[in-house]
């Protein structure tokens, strides 16, 4: 048995009246990947912020390699050898990748001039194993996935004994994620202790040695990964057995398409995409970063201009890129960036839900707050939004419930075509199941649902058929039994249809 790297004993943390952590423990060995799991609000992030020096525990003991571990800030934590890769990207957008990666070093070095060329070379080195990101690019110009890679590279340069990953793959594609996994395995082989937080069960089982489960701020159990199953872990997380994650496909989609997209391009990532959406189906849209998935949907919804192609809805041409007109026609879009573009964090749940169509809850000039609250209450019931009141600001809700509010906002206008982009990103497993059920329920009511997701098991679990994009073009379509991670990845990587499929042709 290898030495114990980090031990957390009986740590508690309160925020006002809220007990974020109650007597939790965690033991991390050297050369171990230790997964920490739990629903949102289980206290994982609080503990990680304590370990990272961002928060101070109210009670309890933490020891690093047998020595008491007391840190008053992230810099102190890094000095002792504990690094944290944040779930939310904390980079400076206006400086280069290299300057971001070596931010803390530049800060502590104390020299007068920046050693730009040296930093660039070392940044290239740090990034080499991950994904090609130019060291001299400005971080703000990079897509989210590349920014996440920079965040990871930054932590890797710290030479830590303990490295904490908080949902590192949330914004990564499968390829980038598997590059990260091989790096994590390398770090593990060097004797580093790694704490890994993720909602993705498959990752946890592929990567971790042990799994510790938290629930409602309390320690539940530490399990050996080899001796347990995803179902068992999920049961521990929610405290009751989980039924099927993905809802059954019941109805038959209509045969006639309501929305037809013919050869659209946006002059950038989207080169030539044609697709049809039928009422009553869930169409999955897969593709790697850079495939133009999101951009295609933005162009269809009228949120971004298109340079070529035709869009027909109900037999009418949609000519202008005008999202307001799309909303009126019944075409709505759920953004992948919940906090940035989906919800108004400081406004109330009710005010959020009525944002798309105020006429729904108002007379000619004034908002009828009784109607507004009634709509919000109906949505709260229907989507299971957990809150004490619909007057509560959305900021105070958990990620999963914020996402339900974002969805409620769209459902309030009774859409006919619903585009959802990464609908369960950063959402706990209970809320995921609920969102899947909601999407399937909508399809059963005759809504056409188009879902984008980087999580292939999810996409395969919820979709009736999957359209795969590669570099702005449709690479192929899979449906029914031929939907598998292999067939989709094959198409997404630009290799054409998977071999098993070509035989059927």
């Amino acid at each position, binding site marked *: 048995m290898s030495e114990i790297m980090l031990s957390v004993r009986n740590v508690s943390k309160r*925020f*006002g*009246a*809220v007990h974020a952590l109650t007597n939790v423990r965690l033991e991390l060995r050297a050369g171990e990947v230790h997964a920490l799991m739990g629903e949102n609000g289980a206290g994982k992030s609080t503990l990680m912020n304590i370990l990272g020096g961002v928060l101070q525990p109210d009670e309890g003991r933490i020891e690093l390699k047998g020595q008491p571990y007391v840190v008053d800030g992230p810099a102190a934590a890094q000095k002792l050898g504990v690094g944290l890769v944040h779930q939310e990207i904390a980079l400076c957008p206006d400086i280069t990748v290299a300057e971001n990666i070596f931010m803390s070093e530049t800060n502590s070095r104390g020299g007068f001039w920046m050693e730009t060329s040296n930093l660039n070379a070392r940044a290239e080195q740090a990034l080499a194993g991950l994904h090609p990101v130019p060291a001299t690019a400005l971080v703000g110009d990079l897509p989210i996935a590349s920014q996440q890679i920079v965040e990871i590279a930054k932590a890797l340069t710290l030479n830590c004994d303990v490295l904490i990953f908080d949902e590192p793959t949330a914004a990564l594609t499968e390829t980038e994620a598997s590059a990260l996994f091989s790096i994590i395995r390398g770090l593990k082989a060097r004797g580093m202790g790694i704490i890994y937080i993720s909602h993705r069960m498959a990752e946890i089982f592929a990567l971790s040695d042990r799994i510790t489960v938290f629930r409602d701020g309390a320690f539940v159990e530490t399990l050996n990964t080899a001796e347990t199953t995803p179902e068992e872990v999920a049961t521990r997380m929610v405290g009751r057995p989980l039924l099927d994650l993905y809802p059954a496909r019941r109805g038959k989609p209509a045969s006639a398409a309501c929305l037809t997209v013919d050869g659209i391009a946006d002059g950038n990532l989207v080169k030539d995409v044609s697709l049809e959406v039928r009422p009553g189906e869930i169409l999955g849209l897969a593709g790697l970063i850079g495939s133009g998935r999101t951009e295609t949907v933005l162009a269809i919804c009228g*949120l971004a201009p298109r340079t070529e192609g035709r869009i027909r809805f109900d037999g009418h041409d949609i000519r202008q890129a005008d*999202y*307001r007109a*799309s*909303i009126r026609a019944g075409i709505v*879009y759920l*953004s992948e960036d919940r906090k*940035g*573009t*989906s*919800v*108004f*964090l*400081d*406004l109330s749940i009710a*005010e959020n839900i*009525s*944002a*798309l169509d*105020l*006429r729904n809850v*108002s007379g000619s*000039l*004034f*908002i009828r*707050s009784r109607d507004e609250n009634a709509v919000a209450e109906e949505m709260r019931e229907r989507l299971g939004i957990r809150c004490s009141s619909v007057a509560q600001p959305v*900021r*105070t809700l958990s990620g999963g419930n914020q996402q339900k509010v974002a969805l409620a*906002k769209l459902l309030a206008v009774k859409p006919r075509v619903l585009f959802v982009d990464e609908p369960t990103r950063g959402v706990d497993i209970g809320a995921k199941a609920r969102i899947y059920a909601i999407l399937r329920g909508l399809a059963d009511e005759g809504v056409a649902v188009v879902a984008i997701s980087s999580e292939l098991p999810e996409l395969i679990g919820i979709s009736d058929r999957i359209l795969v994009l590669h570099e702005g073009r449709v690479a192929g379509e899979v449906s029914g039994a031929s939907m598998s991670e292999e067939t989709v990845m094959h198409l997404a990587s630009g290799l054409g249809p998977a071999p098993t499929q070509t035989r059927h042709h």
Partner: protein
Amino acid sequence: MTVANPSVMKRLIRVREFGLLAIIALIFVVMSFASPYFLTWSNMRAVMLSFSVEGIVVIGMTILLIVGGIDLSVGSVVCLSMVVGGALFLAGLDPWTASLIAIACCGFIGFLMGQCVTRIGLHFFIVSLAFMVIVRGLCLLITKGTPQSLFSLPPAFKFIGQGSLGPVPFVIVIFVVLIAVFDVLLRRSTFFRRVYYTGSNEKAALFSGVNTNRTKVICATICGTLSGVAGVVYMARFGAATPQFGVGMELSVIAAAVIGGASLNGGSGTIAGAVLGAALLSLVTSSLILLNVAPYWQDIIRGGILLVAVTADHLLNTRKSKG
């Protein structure tokens, strides 16, 4: 209930208007002991008069702050309204038409600023800084740098600024009506809901189909128009228009709005809060005068109040988001 009381208290303290009312009440109690003149009708009248006209500008500024903008040009625009109205009157136009044209000019200045912000993509701060200087230059140009004497304004027009309904100055009546109208509009109209959406998260507003550019332009136009209204009221009150009027007004107006709970990040603010903020600043000034505090101290104290208000708000807000 010992358990329920603290939480109710806490929630009330978090409502900005309640905190301001409490402070104002405190000033009333302390000052009524400290100075026999404080609680007299003439002093109260003077205090109300002093913030009523500027309060009209505070309403406009609050609206612009909510949408995520700011307007440094309000002092110059108020002055523009006075000198344009005055110049047109002196040129022979009847004062009512002259005033309407002056107000329209000010609204147009706001509209122009909104266009610069939304079309070119500049920041309100920079655009309004430029317009502050440009409009001040216009005022000097129109008046050739000398004050206009408008003693010949007809009594019916002077009534706007000098008359009273019973014991209440007409200026205060105008202010109260504007407060009532905009308070209802901000809380309940669909347009102002879009203003809050845009200021709270512009991208999310765009992704909800809100025409954020149009919303911002309209807010800037409202702010300019209300500054114009204030200028006309000043003109009627003073019977004169000086090209240097309103220098530095933007600072006290922004201070009042921010003390009243408007955030420079947009998305928050209420009319009631803004009015109480303006009232508080005016009460403090009046109290300091009654207490014979040297005028140089007054600015220091008012600046300190702004700092305290913003700090308190920040502390309450950070605790709120953690809890």
